[in-house]
């Protein structure tokens, strides 16, 4: 178990594997708290709210891009990598935030959007200014749009080609994402050096990790899908080597929306990324609950390879993007659409732009079950801001802005997010009768003992008390009742049995726990002892969507 209180920060500092035990909170500074009444969240506002995150049990914060940007892709179109967008404050504000977070035992992970820049970045402006410019070769140019034919288009709703015509230099430039996001040329060593200088800038300041955006697409080669190429791995290994040498204990997180067997390569031999998102697990957790069948989860774990001991999966339920359905079959995608996005306005690209609570029809039991899965499955959980209170979404805001609305702090004007005029907010607050800020907000839930927020705090606290959740192995029990998902987590002398009823009705299940004969299961939330495991199948009954976490002890 971890020691509690102020010693926690010091303890974590010493542990280079801190990311394995972390509970990460994902937020955009714009959405969280506006300190200067301009309608946009900022770092001073975020700093004011750090106590809330500490109380929640968060140990790391992943910040979405906060750099100067035209903001045509929610900040993933960066125009200056070493500064702070003026709407969010200053570098000084960021430093103050960083120190405040560290003092509370929270680490900070920031974005490293290295695949592309904004077309407003000075590098690109120079590169397009003439074919002879020294920065010209920092991007990928062509006189024809027929190179790399057959490479998939990611934003199928908006883009028709991966090439865009530059009327300035009369050439095509390569972009895997929006056409205003030209890809950097990683075959040019100068680009790698420039990006390392940017990383050093933030590392020197004290950031604890980077989320590398769009990792698979760094390198292009003719006749390939231009994804996951060996040269890309070589670049990652180079960054990792430099990081470990100069900044041990810092972490790299890969965004590679791919099958686990492909993502596995990004861990290398423990010499590439420390962590990577497990994208395919996420839709399958939703699928399993709707299907009332553990099959999707079991199957994806069967397809998940072992990773080096120093590496870790990052798992999540929702994030700032659409609930991506890239890593599912057509049949599964259709099912997810039919069950979770019946209104077509809820769909975007190959995904669903909704938040957790609305997808669960605001059913507290299902929200808790999914949160329980998130916190008990192997990997580091990432909580998307607002999901801990069951915030809703607004699918009519366009793009994915419906899941990026202001944090709902209280029932006052603008949900306590800002004192600006409502018209000035970067986004309208959610105000409908079910999910509106007057019904769903932090203040109200803090006052209520059995609110979702208070429950989530208890859940995270429990998780944080046991290393087994972050570091333990997983072994699935396979009871005949397929509506029940049960698994054993084990790490050193810690052993936990998790039993989840995925269905909307009460279930009985017989668990084969003979290998654990003699152990006494202790229900972890209430610390109640259950009958000792013996030679016969262990019978449990579970209410709808109920789950148990049992600590297994030899007593």
């Amino acid at each position, binding site marked *: 178990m971890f020691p509690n209180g102020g010693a926690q920060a010091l303890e974590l500092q010493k542990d280079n594997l801190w990311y394995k035990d972390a509970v990460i909170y994902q937020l955009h500074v714009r959405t969280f708290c506006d300190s200067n009444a301009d309608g946009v969240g900022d770092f001073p506002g975020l700093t004011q709210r750090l106590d809330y995150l500490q109380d929640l049990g968060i140990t790391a914060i992943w910040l979405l891009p906060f750099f100067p940007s035209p903001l045509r892709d929610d900040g993933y179109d960066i125009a200056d990598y070493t500064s702070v967008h003026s709407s969010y404050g200053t570098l000084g504000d960021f430093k103050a935030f960083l120190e405040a977070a560290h003092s509370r035992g929270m680490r900070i992970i920031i974005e490293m959007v290295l695949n592309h820049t904004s077309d407003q970045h000075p590098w690109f402006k120079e590169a397009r200014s003439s074919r002879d410019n020294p920065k010209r070769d920092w991007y990928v140019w062509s006189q024809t749009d027929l190179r790399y034919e057959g490479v998939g288009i990611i934003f199928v709703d908006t883009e028709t080609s991966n090439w865009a015509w530059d009327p300035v230099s009369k050439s095509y430039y390569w972009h895997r994402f929006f056409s205003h996001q030209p890809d950097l040329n990683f075959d040019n060593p100068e680009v790698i050096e420039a990006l390392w200088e940017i990383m050093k800038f933030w590392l020197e300041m004290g950031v604890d990790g980077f989320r590398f955006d769009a990792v698979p697409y760094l390198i292009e080669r003719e006749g390939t899908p231009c994804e996951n190429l060996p040269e890309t791995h070589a670049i990652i290994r180079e960054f990792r080597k430099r990081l470990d040498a100069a900044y041990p204990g810092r972490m790299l997180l890969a965004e590679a929306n791919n099958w686990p067997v492909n993502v596995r390569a990004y861990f290398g031999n423990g010499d590439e990324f420390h962590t990577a998102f497990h994208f395919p697990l996420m839709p399958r957790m939703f699928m399993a609950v709707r299907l009332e*069948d553990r099959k999707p989860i079991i199957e994806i774990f069967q397809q998940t390879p072992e990773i080096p001991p120093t590496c870790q999966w990052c798992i999540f339920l929702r994030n700032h993007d659409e609930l991506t359905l890239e890593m599912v079959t057509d049949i599964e995608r259709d099912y997810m659409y039919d069950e979770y996005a019946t209104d077509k306005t809820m769909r975007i690209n190959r995904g669903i732009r909704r938040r957790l609570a609305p997808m669960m029809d605001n059913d507290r039991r299902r929200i808790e079950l999914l949160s329980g899965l998130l916190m008990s499955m192997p990997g580091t959980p990432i909580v998307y801001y607002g999901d801990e209170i069951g915030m809703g979404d607004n699918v009519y805001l366009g793009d994915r802005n419906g899941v990026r609305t202001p944090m709902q702090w209280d029932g006052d004007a603008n949900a306590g997010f800002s004192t600006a005029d409502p018209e000035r907010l970067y986004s309208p607050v959610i105000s409908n009768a079910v999910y509106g800020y007057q019904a769903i907000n932090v203040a109200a839930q803090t006052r209520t003992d059995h609110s979702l927020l208070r429950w989530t705090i208890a859940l995270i606290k429990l998780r944080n008390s046991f290393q087994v959740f972050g570091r333990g192995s997983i072994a699935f029990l396979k009871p005949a009742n397929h509506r029940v998902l049960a698994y054993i987590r084990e790490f050193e002398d810690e052993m936990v049995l998790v039993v989840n009823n995925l269905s909307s009705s009460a279930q009985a299940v017989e668990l084969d726990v003979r290998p654990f004969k003699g152990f006494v299961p202790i229900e972890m939330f209430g610390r109640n002892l259950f009958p000792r495991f013996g030679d016969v199948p262990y019978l449990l009954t579970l209410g709808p969507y109920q789950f148990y976490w049992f600590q297994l002890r030899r007593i």
Partner: protein
Amino acid sequence: METEIAGALAEDTILADDLIRQLMSVGEVDLLVGITSPSNAPATSHACRAIEQCFQQRFTRQRAAIVIVCGQDAAGGDASAPASAEPAERDGHSGGALRTVQRVTADFPVPPSPGQALRTLLTAADLLRAKACAMLAPGSSELTPERVASLLQPVFHDKFDFVAPLYTRHKFQGLLARTLLYPMSRALFCSGIRELYSDEWAFSGRLAAACLAQDVWHEESIQARPEAWMAITAIARELRLCQTFLGPKLPPPAGSATDIVEVFRETVGNLFWCMESRRSTWANCQGTDLAQTFGQAQELTSEPSDLDPQRIREMFRNGVAELGSILSSILDPETYAQITSIVECTEGSCRFRPELWVRALYDFASSYHHSVINRDHLVQALVPLYRGMTYSYLMEHSQSTAEEMEAANESLCAEFARQKPYLTEKWNAKLEVKS
């Protein structure tokens, strides 16, 4: 008193504790398929795979389970042991199905009768609230996912309550169905289901519940062939029936030689029993509700036949001669006289005309009703007449096309309908005599 109650409970308990435990784990399902395990495990495994593939390919979103009904075979071994309740997930990636396909096994100490097997499935369907069910007898390796889907889809997607199969047959195969079971049941129950007696059919959850609730399960007729009774129950309750084309009829399980007398007991005897138990249904219906047919039906083909007409004729003549006294007690005197005249006719001129065939059958049915003689013997006595009809049929249609034979079949159906008042009269008249 406690012993009596326990005894009564034990008698009423259809499902073994182990099966209940398995069903408890399955939970509610959309689709439930029962198979009676043959005496070889590979066939059961093959059938389970075909059913699972059906679920994975055609019912990807539905909750589905397979109930394997089996018993210890003659050698004392468990016929279905290798196909025990192994959910598909244990085989790794299981195709397109989103959910686990569950298998449960209902073990009997001895091989269960078809009636027991069906009752087990109906009980399971009731407990699991299944929407669409099918009963299969996997005697062949030709059971395919498509066949299973063809049976289930009309129930699940089109809300039919009973789905009978329809097969491609040689023009001289299935003559019992074509000359007796189909036209007679059509005239009586006003339903155009051609294959009332089959080893594979599908039904809805509500029909399952309706059948399960009836106190018929100890009846010998139900134990042997429950499917026609199930269809007639659907008719009686004005539920929706249809038929679905499955392609060629699967060959019977190896080693299961067909005994015509046994077949008559199980089918014709069963039909007579259904008439007895569903008298109000057939007495009140008129016309024909031509059942909707799914799939492209090509019922008849013209491959060479291995039937020996002369042998059949001889058996007809010998049978009528041997059973003369019994036949004369069953048949109307005029009917009996006409049959004996056919026996005496020269080769090639024998014709069992439709009106005589129908009249004779109605005599048998009414005699069955009035228990003129032992009912089992009565049904057996019909076999020689059937042979006579078969010989006549072979002679008449040796060169007929499929269309011509279909026309003749329609004509026979019409004759059954035309003479239905005769049946009613005999049925009631005798009753009056008795009373």
